[in-house]
C-alpha cells in the first residue's frame, strides 16, 4: 500500500518571474505525482526550472498558478505559519551550498529544527541531534564548526539537520554540486540508506551519473517535463565506493 501512496501531486503548476518588462516563464504547467518511498532525480539543463520546481514543492516559494497537494491535502491555501510547520515536520532540505549557520557547531546546527518544533522536549533534543549526526557518520565531529569541516562533512551535517525531525521527504537541490565524485557517492550512499528506511527523496542534479543512484529520473527542459522514467541500470553507492577503493588500491600498488 505505502508504495503506491501519493505524497506530492502538482497540477498545472506555473511560475512566472517578472524581471523588468520581461516575463520569464520558469515553469509551464507542470503536472506530476511523486509517491511515498520514491527516490526521484530531477535532471535538466541549467535554467530549465529545476530549482524553481523544488523550491515550490518545498514550500519555500509560491507558484504563480496551479495546484499542489501533499498527502492528498491542499498546500497552497495554507498560511505562512502552517507552511513553516509543514517544512519543519515533514520536509527536510539539503542545499548545494550547504546553508549551515556559520560559527555554529554541527550539533547546534542539527538541533535547530528541533528548537522550532514544539513537540520535541528539551531532554531528547540533544539525543536526537547526536543520533542524526551518527547516522551520517559524524558522531566524532559533534562540536565542529562548519569552517572546520570539509564540504562533504558539511553536507552531511546538512543532511542530519534535514532528517532530525523524521521528515516524510528530503528535498535536495544539487546536493553534490560542490563535491568531488567520491564524496558525492558517499552522499548518495546516505540518501539510498535513508530511502531504504522509507524516506522519500527528491533530488535535483545535472550530473547523469548521480541521477543513476535514484529510482526514477525526471527531465526538465524550458520549464516543462520532457521525460519521466524509472532508472534501469541503478547504481548502488556502496558498490561504487568499493570499486573506487579497489581502483585507488591498484593505483597505489602499481
Amino acid at each position: 500500500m505505502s508504495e503506491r501512496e501519493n505524497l506530492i501531486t502538482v497540477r498545472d503548476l506555473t511560475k512566472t518571474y517578472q524581471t523588468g518588462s520581461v516575463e520569464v516563464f520558469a515553469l509551464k504547467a507542470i503536472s506530476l505525482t511523486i509517491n511515498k518511498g520514491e527516490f526521484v532525480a530531477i535532471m535538466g539543463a541549467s535554467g530549465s526550472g529545476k530549482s524553481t520546481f523544488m523550491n515550490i514543492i518545498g514550500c519555500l516559494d509560491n507558484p504563480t498558478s496551479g495546484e499542489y497537494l501533499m498527502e492528498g491535502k491542499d498546500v497552497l491555501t495554507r498560511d505562512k505559519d502552517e507552511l513553516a510547520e509543514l517544512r519543519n515536520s515533514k520536509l527536510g532540505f539539503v542545499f548545494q551550498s550547504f546553508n549551515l549557520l556559520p560559527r555554529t557547531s554541527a550539533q547546534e546546527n542539527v538541533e535547530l529544527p528541533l528548537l522550532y518544533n514544539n513537540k520535541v522536549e528539551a531532554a531528547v533534543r540533544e539525543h536526537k541531534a547526536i543520533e542524526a549526526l551518527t547516522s551520517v557518520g559524524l558522531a566524532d565531529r559533534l562540536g565542529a564548526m562548519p569552517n572546520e569541516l570539509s564540504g562533504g562533512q558539511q553536507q552531511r551535517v546538512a543532511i542530519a539537520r534535514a532528517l532530525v525531525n523524521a521528515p516524510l521527504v528530503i528535498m535536495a537541490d544539487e546536493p553534490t554540486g560542490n563535491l568531488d565524485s567520491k564524496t558525492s557517492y558517499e552522499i548518495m550512499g546516505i540518501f539510498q540508506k535513508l530511502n531504504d528506511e522509507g524516506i522519500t527523496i527528491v533530488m535535483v542534479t545535472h550530473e547523469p551519473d548521480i541521477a543513476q543512484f535514484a529510482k526514477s529520473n525526471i527531465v526538465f527542459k524550458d520549464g516543462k517535463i520532457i521525460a519521466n522514467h524509472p532508472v534501469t541500470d541503478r547504481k548502488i553507492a556502496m558498490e561504487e565506493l568499493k570499486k573506487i577503493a579497489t581502483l585507488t588500491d591498484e593505483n597505489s600498488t602499481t
Partner: protein
Amino acid sequence: MKFFNLFRIAYRSLNRNKLRSFLTMLGIIIGVASVIAMLAIGEGSNQTIQKSIASLGTNSIYIFPGTNANGGVRGGAGSNQTLKLEDADAIAAHCDLVKYVTPLVQRKSQIIFGAKNWNTMIIGIRNDYMLIRSLSIIKGSGFTEPDQRSAAKVCLVGVTVVFNLFGDENYNPIGEIIRINSIPVKIIGVLSKMGQNTFGQDQDDIVLAPFYTVQKRMMISTDHIGSILASGKSELQVVDAVDQITSLLREKHKIAPSDDIDFTVRTQSELSNIFGSITKVMTILLASIAGISLLVGGIGIMNIMLVSVTERTREIGIRMAIGAKGRDVLFQFVIESILISVVGGVIGIVVGILVAEMVATFGGWPVVITPLSIILSFGFSSAIGLFFGWYPARKAAALNPIDALRYE
C-alpha cells in the same frame, strides 16, 4: 514556539557574533553613560549654585552701579562709577526696612609675607558685612569700631591665603604683618572655611579689611565705591526694602521720574534666578552634548544592525527553511535586542555613574545623578536598539524563505 527555546536561540546567536554584539552594546553604553554623566554634572552645579546663593542669606540686597545686571554681578563694571559712600550711609539712616548695610570696595592685589607672595582679592567692608553674609572667625577677632574709623592697617584672611603665605592652612597667622600693595597690614583674624563656590572660585581666597583702610589707602579714586550690600529686616519685606532703596537713591542721584536709574538693586532671589538661568543654559548645553552622544551611539547601533542585515537575512532564510515562523524570527531578534539593550544599558548606567563620581572626586565638581537621566538615556538607547533589531528582521521575516536565502 516555546519561549525558552527562542531565548536559547537568541543567546546562541549573540554568543556566536560576539564582536557584533559587543559593538552594538558599546553604542548603548556610550549613549547611556554620557547622558547620565553630563546631566549629573549639570544638575550638580545647578543645585550647588542654588545652595551657595541661599547661603548668601535670603534677605540680602545688592546694589551695583550701572544698570547692567550681569556687569554688576561680576563686579567688574569699573566704568559705571555711580555709587558713593554717602549712598550707603543714607540707606542705613533712612531705610527702615533695611537691617544691615555695608559699602564695599574691592581690588585684586598682591600680598607679600617674607619671600612669599600671593595675588588675591582685597575687600573693604563695614562690620555689617560679617552679619549679612553670616561669616564667622575661627582664629583671632573681627574689626573694632575704632579700626573702622581710623582706617587701621588690620585684616582678616581666608584659609587659602594662610596656606599660600605661610605654607600651612592650620598655621596661626594672628599678629603677622603682611604687605598689601607695599602697605604693612596686621592679620587679626582668620575666616572660617567656606570652600568653593559653584564656579570653582575659592571663597577662602580673600582678604577683608576695614572699609576706609581699603578705600583711602589702596584705591586710586576715593570718590566712588564698588557696590553696596544690605539685608532686609525680614524675607517678606525684602521687596519693599528694594523699593525704599530705589526711591531713596533715585532722589539722592537726582534722577527725574522719566529717566533711567544709574544703579541696580537686586535681591538674593533675583540673583538666584539669574544664576539659575545661567545654570539652565549650562544644563541645556550639557544635555545637548549628551543628546549628541546618544545620537551617535544610536547611529552606531543602527549601523551595526543594518550592516549585518545581509548575513542575517540569509540566516533568517535558513531558519525559515527549517521551520521557523515569521514570529519566531522576530521574537528571536527582539530578544537579542533586549538582551543587548539591557546589558549595555546597565553597563552604561554603571559607567555613567562612575564617570560622574570621578568628576566629583578628581575634578572637585559637584554631581547629582537624577533618575530622569537614567530613564531617559536607557529608554532611548534601548528603543533604538530594539527598533533596529526589529525592523530589518521584520522585513526579512516577511520575505519568502527562498528570497531570504538568496538575499545579497
